[in-house]
């Protein structure tokens, strides 16, 4: 607690005594511009081959609108599932010890290393009516594979590492003194969690959620194998982009890609701004909790 308040007492307007601001920022900006901004502006440039009317027509077609609902809805649901379970997973991986913990810890990265197509094929086989999981769901009348739920399953799979891996270092970093102090001041475990631990974890959780969400929005490889791809029902936007490419309609594809990119950008910006605002609201300084010693 002491470390916390001391950092908040430092005025926000303090001088920059740490070195490397210019260098690191220049590095970052150069890298971002070359690798990300420049290529993406190429995309915008190509999409602008279309007039605004055509662009609007492509972006708001019936199929396109339905696909946004499916894509963003499933991504939101999957990211929420991941935030909840990912927090638990990160917590038990850091705090508890149990047999096989290391192996399970390593397993968390699996969704990244497994090619998305393999993930999609495997999940579809598992959740099909005769699959290891699907056969137990089928008598309950629950269908996952080849329905929009299948999309959520695939997106949960590919998004999980984001939440767990963003939370792990932060949970590892929480100083036990803070919890002990809270406990010694009479706080229950629940109060400690809500008042002390959660605020410290929350920014990372939000980050993990955002990352899982944005990754899900663009995901194609795994989803098409489990979605069923029925027009208006289980068609994701990236599938429509592919469909345009199959028709050699590169401009139409870039138009849809731009729409997705803009929506994602606005959502990401909103979350990041919210986070920044939340961090600054308290005390005008970043929520530093228990800097080491």
């Amino acid at each position, binding site marked *: 607690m002491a470390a916390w308040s001391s950092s908040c007492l430092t005025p926000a307007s303090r001088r*920059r005594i740490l*070195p*490397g*601001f210019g*260098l690191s*920022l220049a*590095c*970052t900006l150069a*890298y*971002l511009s070359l*690798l*990300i901004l420049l*290529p*993406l502006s*190429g*995309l915008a440039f190509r999409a602008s081959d279309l007039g605004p009317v055509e662009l609007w027509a492509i972006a708001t077609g019936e199929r396109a609108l339905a696909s946004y609902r499916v894509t963003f809805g499933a991504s939101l649901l999957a990211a929420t599932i991941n935030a909840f379970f990912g927090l*638990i997973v990160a917590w*038990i991986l850091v705090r*508890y010890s149990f047999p096989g913990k290391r192996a*399970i*810890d390593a*397993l*968390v*990265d*699996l969704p*990244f*290393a*497994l*090619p998305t*197509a*393999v993930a999609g094929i*495997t999940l579809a086989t598992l959740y099909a009516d005769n699959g290891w999981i699907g056969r137990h769901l089928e008598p309950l009348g629950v269908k996952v594979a080849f329905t929009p739920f299948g999309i959520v*399953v695939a997106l949960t*799979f590919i998004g999980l*590492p984001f939440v767990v*891996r963003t939370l792990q270092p932060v949970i590892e*970093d929480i100083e*036990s003194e803070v919890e002990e102090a809270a406990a010694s001041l009479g706080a229950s475990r629940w109060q400690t969690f809500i008042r002390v631990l959660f605020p410290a974890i929350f*920014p*990372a959780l939000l980050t993990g959620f955002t990352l899982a969400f944005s990754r899900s*929005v*663009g*995901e*194609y490889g795994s989803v098409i194998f489990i979605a069923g791809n029925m027009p208006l029902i289980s068609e994701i936007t*990236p599938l429509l*982009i*592919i469909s345009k*490419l199959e028709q050699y309609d590169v401009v139409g*594809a*870039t138009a849809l890609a731009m729409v997705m*990119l803009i929506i994602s950008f606005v959502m*990401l910006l909103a979350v*990041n*701004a919210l*986070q*920044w605002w939340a*961090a600054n609201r308290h005390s005008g300084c*970043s*929520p530093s*909790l228990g800097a080491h010693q």
Partner: protein
Amino acid sequence: MNGRLRRVNAEPRWLRALLLGVGLGFLFFFLALPLLAVFVEAFAAGWTAYAGALNDPETRSAIGLTLLVALFVLPFNVVFGVAAAWAIAKFDFRGKSLLITLIDLPFAVSPVVVGLVFLLIFGAQGLFGPWLAAHDIKVVFALPGIIIVTLFITSPFVARELIPLMQAQGKEEEEAALSLGASAWQMFRRVTLPNIKWGLLYGVILANARAMGEFGAVSVVSGHIRGETNTLPLHVEILYNEYNAVGAFASASVLALLALVTLLAKTVVEWRMRRENSMLLADLPAEES
């Protein structure tokens, strides 16, 4: 460290059991079962078929290419990630949210679109296409193209791991080190690096896994030339489409295993850190609490 953690770990027994049950159950259904299914398919025709599938020269060249790409991409990720996190977490400036959002953006771009974007630039019909063709430089459908899209796809990982961590840590320690006369480099090596080691490691592990596993973007710019520009994930898909399920899932299992190798890396780092820590702790005066 661990002994102290266990002491604070004050959740009641039932809650611990519940959390463990829920967490492990979730992992079982979402990670362990799919992994198991991959291995079951890979070994469907027995050990010899599995080994035979991996011994295929095209498979081996695909494994080599995938490792080469990862090896190339990771150093860039580390440098960019640390630089970006340093600027963002340790300093206040305008437009920070925008900058973070830009860093996040590659995650939100559909991998196929990523490939498309680089084709629009480096492809024969792209912006620099004619110039590159005139100078006989190959970017797309060759190794450079694969590396560039992989860089794009993996660029946010290290930065994104480090930013929340470094923000949570604040900057008192670095400032203290400087005021004690440390040089910038000393401060970074002795104070910052030890503090961010886990985040950095996780970032690298994730970027590595993603670099090796990426399919969509690479598939657009690779050209799929067997034995030359076919990465392992692409190879997996082709084998599967050719009705060679054993070959496909065997190759996929290699990717899964490569991801698990990071387990080894992590264990080694952990072990070395603990040794350093215990030496360090011995030097420090006892803590108050």
